[in-house]
């Protein structure tokens, strides 16, 4: 039994939507440049077309895991795997203009209306892909053709909606303004309007078809529907007087998978025989419009999710009252600052649990380069260090950063060294490993680097630790790079005019309560051990009290 009227080979795959498959529509071809030459649209992420076509994926920066940036990216790209966004989050930009380009787009997308317009385009394009996949996967040719038509129709809707949407809005960014020029020109182009009209015509012809089946014994007969009356309604009507109250439904639900069994396919083939003109038009359409999607627009669809993902990720935090800002970028001097900064990954978790996030400030002026963070444990020191690193990376990819205001340095490379707990079994090996890794970092660092060190040399004797840490800080001092160093060694805090001391703090009246605030203050050398002991009710008096209650253990 042969199925299908048209012997067109329908091997499609969804990669047909990839940029390199089709000729690029050029706005200048059909739209007269009315303004003083709107810049041509390449990409919503980059000012200029990139030279390397991004074929090789950008490696994950080494510091990603230490700084919990991997959690941030996972959160920002959740449910968006199909767009392959990770590498955009990995790849730092080299100029402040490139960062500005993204800031502009991001600011536009903070406008609900513009974001809504783009989101609508994205969700419609997702449907285009699903439908093309359907067209590829299915077996029967008549079905493949129809799904292809559905995909093309959906694509036209996406384009028209995007053009109409952006035209009624006023984006300020270079990126979205250029896109608007591009898509409105494209939507008016003859090739697109022809495509769209052809689709509408075929859809309406096929949609108007009605047919009747008479199923009897082991077969069926099919013919055009001839206005026969609705017998189900007649039966329901006859029995209506018995109705009282709700009764259970006996309606069977049928699995409506998109594919067909051979009986349905046979019926469809008969329908096609009854309507030869309509179906041959469909076949012709499929053959002539294999690559209907514009590569620039499909590329935009992917890239814009970098912005959407990040904005979605920070939206609940903003709602919870946390602030984000577009950082100013320092390229020559190293005077950096941040007001109300926080660890984004931690804040996302805390906000989900309806807990409060503590914000911290920092600044470096003049010769200051190195922040030494000391103070009570569990007081937010590590979180502070992570925040410092996160702020710099997020700034380098053009994202708004946690904080009410910030000025951050455009670094060339960033390094982190966090204690690795799994190595604790072999203390000797661990110290050696620490030193080896720090050496590597210092070798690669330049005056434009950022270094984040967390609890270095914890595993050795105090004397060794002071010695080694002092040496390392002196080396970093010599490099003139930016550094945050978390340590229990408060000797490090006053090594030179380039070091700044910051302390994690406790509530003055209740030393057992930590504030998670890290403030700029000289290290005072006070022992915090007692406050931690109080928290666990293990001081002299507490232990006596607990054991005095007639020997009963207390909690």
């Amino acid at each position, binding site marked *: 039994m042969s199925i299908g009227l048209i012997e067109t080979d329908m091997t499609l795959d969804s990669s047909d939507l990839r940029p390199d498959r089709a000729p690029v529509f050029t706005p200048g071809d059909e739209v007269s440049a009315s303004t003083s030459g709107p810049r041509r649209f390449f990409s919503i992420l980059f000012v200029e077309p990139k030279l390397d076509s991004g074929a090789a994926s950008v490696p994950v920066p080494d510091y990603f895991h230490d700084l919990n940036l991997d959690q941030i990216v996972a959160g920002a790209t959740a449910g968006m795997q199909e767009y392959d966004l990770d590498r955009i989050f990995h790849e730092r930009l080299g100029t402040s203009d490139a960062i500005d380009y993204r800031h502009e787009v991001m600011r536009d997308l903070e406008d609900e209306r513009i974001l809504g317009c783009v989101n609508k385009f994205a969700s419609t394009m997702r449907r285009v892909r699903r439908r093309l996949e359907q067209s590829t996967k*299915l077996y029967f040719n008549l079905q493949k053709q129809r799904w292809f038509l559905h995909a093309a129709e959906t694509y036209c809707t996406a384009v028209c909606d995007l053009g109409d949407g952006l035209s009624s809005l006023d984006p300020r960014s270079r990126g979205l303004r250029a896109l608007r020029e591009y898509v409105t020109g494209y939507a008016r182009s003859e090739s697109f309007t022809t495509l769209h009209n052809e689709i509408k015509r075929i859809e309406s012809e*096929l949609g108007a078809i009605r047919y009747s*089946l008479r199923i009897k014994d082991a077969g069926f007969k099919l*013919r055009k529907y001839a206005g026969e009356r609705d017998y189900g309604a007649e039966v329901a009507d006859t*029995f209506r007087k*018995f*109705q009282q109250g709700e009764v259970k439904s*006996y309606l069977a639900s049928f699995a409506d998978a998109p594919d067909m069994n051979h009986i349905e396919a046979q019926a469809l083939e008969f329908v096609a025989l009854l309507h030869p003109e309509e179906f041959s038009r469909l076949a012709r359409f499929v053959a002539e419009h294999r690559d209907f999607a514009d590569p620039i627009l499909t590329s935009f669809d992917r890239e814009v999710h970098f912005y959407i993902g990040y904005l979605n990720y920070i939206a609940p935090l903003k709602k919870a009252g946390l602030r984000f800002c577009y950082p100013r970028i320092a390229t020559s001097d190293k005077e950096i600052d941040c007001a109300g900064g926080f660890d984004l990954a931690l804040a996302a978790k805390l906000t989900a649990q309806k807990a409060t996030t503590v914000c911290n400030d920092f600044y470096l002026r003049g010769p200051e380069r190195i922040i030494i963070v000391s103070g009570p444990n569990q007081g937010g020191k590590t979180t502070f260090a992570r925040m410092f690193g996160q702020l710099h990376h997020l700034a380098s990819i053009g994202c708004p950063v946690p904080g009410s205001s910030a000025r951050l340095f455009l670094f060339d490379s960033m390094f982190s060294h966090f204690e690795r707990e799994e190595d604790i079994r072999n203390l000797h090996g661990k110290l050696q490993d620490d030193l080896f890794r720090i050496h590597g970092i210092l070798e690669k660092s330049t005056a434009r680097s950022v270094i984040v060190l967390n609890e270095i040399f914890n595993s050795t004797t105090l004397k060794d630790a002071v010695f080694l840490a002092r040496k390392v800080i002196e080396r970093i001092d010599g490099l003139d790079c930016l550094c945050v160093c978390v340590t229990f060694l408060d000797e490090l805090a006053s090594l030179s005019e380039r070091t700044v001391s910051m302390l994690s703090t406790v509530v003055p009246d209740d030393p057992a309560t930590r504030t998670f605030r890290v403030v700029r203050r000289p290290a005072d050398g006070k022992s915090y051990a007692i406050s931690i002991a109080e928290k666990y009710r293990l001081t002299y008096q507490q232990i006596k009290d607990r054991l005095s209650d007639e020997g009963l253990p207390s909690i």
Partner: protein
Amino acid sequence: MKAYLLYRDRSFDLAGGHPPGEAALVQDLELTTLFAAMAQSDRWVGEVVPRVVLESTADVDTIRYRQEILKDCVRHAEVVRGVYALAVRTIDAERKIYGAVFHYPSSTLHRSIQVMEMLIVALKELRETAEEQVSAFQSDGFRTLFGMLVEELGDSYLETIQYHLKELRFARGVLISARLGEGSKGADYVLRKENPRPARWSARVIETARRAFGGGPPTYSFQLAPRDESGARALGELRDRGINLAANALAQSADHVLSFFAMLRTELAFYVGCLNLLDRTDALGVPYCWPQPFASVERRHAARGLYDVCLALTMGRAVVGNELAARGKTLVIVTGANQGGKSTFLRSVGLAQVMMQCGMFVPAESFETNACERIFTHYKREEDSTMKSGKFDEELSRLSAIVDCLVPNSIVLFNESFASTNEREGSEIARQVVSALTERQIKILFVTHQYDFAQSMHALGDPAYSFLRAERRPDGTRSFKVVEGEPLPTSFGQDLYARIFTEEQANPRVAGAAVS
């Protein structure tokens, strides 16, 4: 189609909520004895009667509506029992019709046709009974039901149904229309009926000729290859899609008709239960009367020959009846000798109230009372070893739960409440409770041997208070009658003591017989 034999305008909800205090009411008034007498051996009556009795309506019109229906039932007991039996039989018959485990429309349709054919026979029988009896019955309820059956289920309608049941067997195949949905799959399958062929002879000839010469609309045919099982399944599914709505409509209609029979069975079960009880009381030769209900805002309570029907049923003979004349009274306090019939009297009052408020006759020579919004009992409980709190705690906590549920114009029957503490404290609490409740429009009957409480209430001289006393004959024996009388400072404990210790061995049953 509705039966509407319990409410004028709605069906009885067998799954309706349980009124608060229901369990205590059943226990304290020994309603299980009443229910058992009403159920006899009919399981369904046994299930329905407690629900109807306990749902208790305070609406005077509903009470009268049911009284009229019950009077019809008494007059035409055989007819009513016959209709009930038909409803029971019909529902049982449906259960015996085999149904497939998986509900494909074709199997649903197949079974529904069988069920509906059975139901049509039952409906016809029901209608014929209605036609015969419609003029003999007098109550609004039965006249409406019978009238509706005669009107709705005429022969021509039943024939129309039978015609459709035949058509739905699809001897000539199933005709379905469709359009092309998403991906060109068939969609919007609608069951169709072949257009009638042209009526005129000449037109038919033309049509036949047109087809013969290929001028008609083209038709394509497909036949399954032998052993194409997946094809047969697919074709079956296509057919199922076509008949889905019709199968659903028929199955739901069968359910509706069945639910009519189920409702008829439920509502008649209550009246059959009443008839069963009447058979028992008639056999005992004890009287019944049709109580006169008054609105719940009124304060009426009057009876002659009021007796505890449960006690009569248990003992198998007539028992002592009492008078009550408490018109305008908000509080009735019953005092008097222990074992003097106080509790039995209280129970007979409660039973009569409950029976009246579900539309039943009442075990009395005459009875009138105001309907009460809710009926509660607060009885002294035997010591319970599982109780964690003390007995007095337990009593108060039960009372608190009752107060949570009280609405104005409810009634509370107290029996020896607050006796688990000393008389001074018990009396004080009783005074406070009773005063507060009566001021909040709660009607109270209070059986107590706490003289301090009863006497202090009597001393108030409020005309809305009534005081009764278990009668004690001058010779010290009890008549088990309760008569008007102010509280007396002793409960005749010595009498009891003396009697038990002198007569117990001689005739223990007499002592036990009237004990509550």
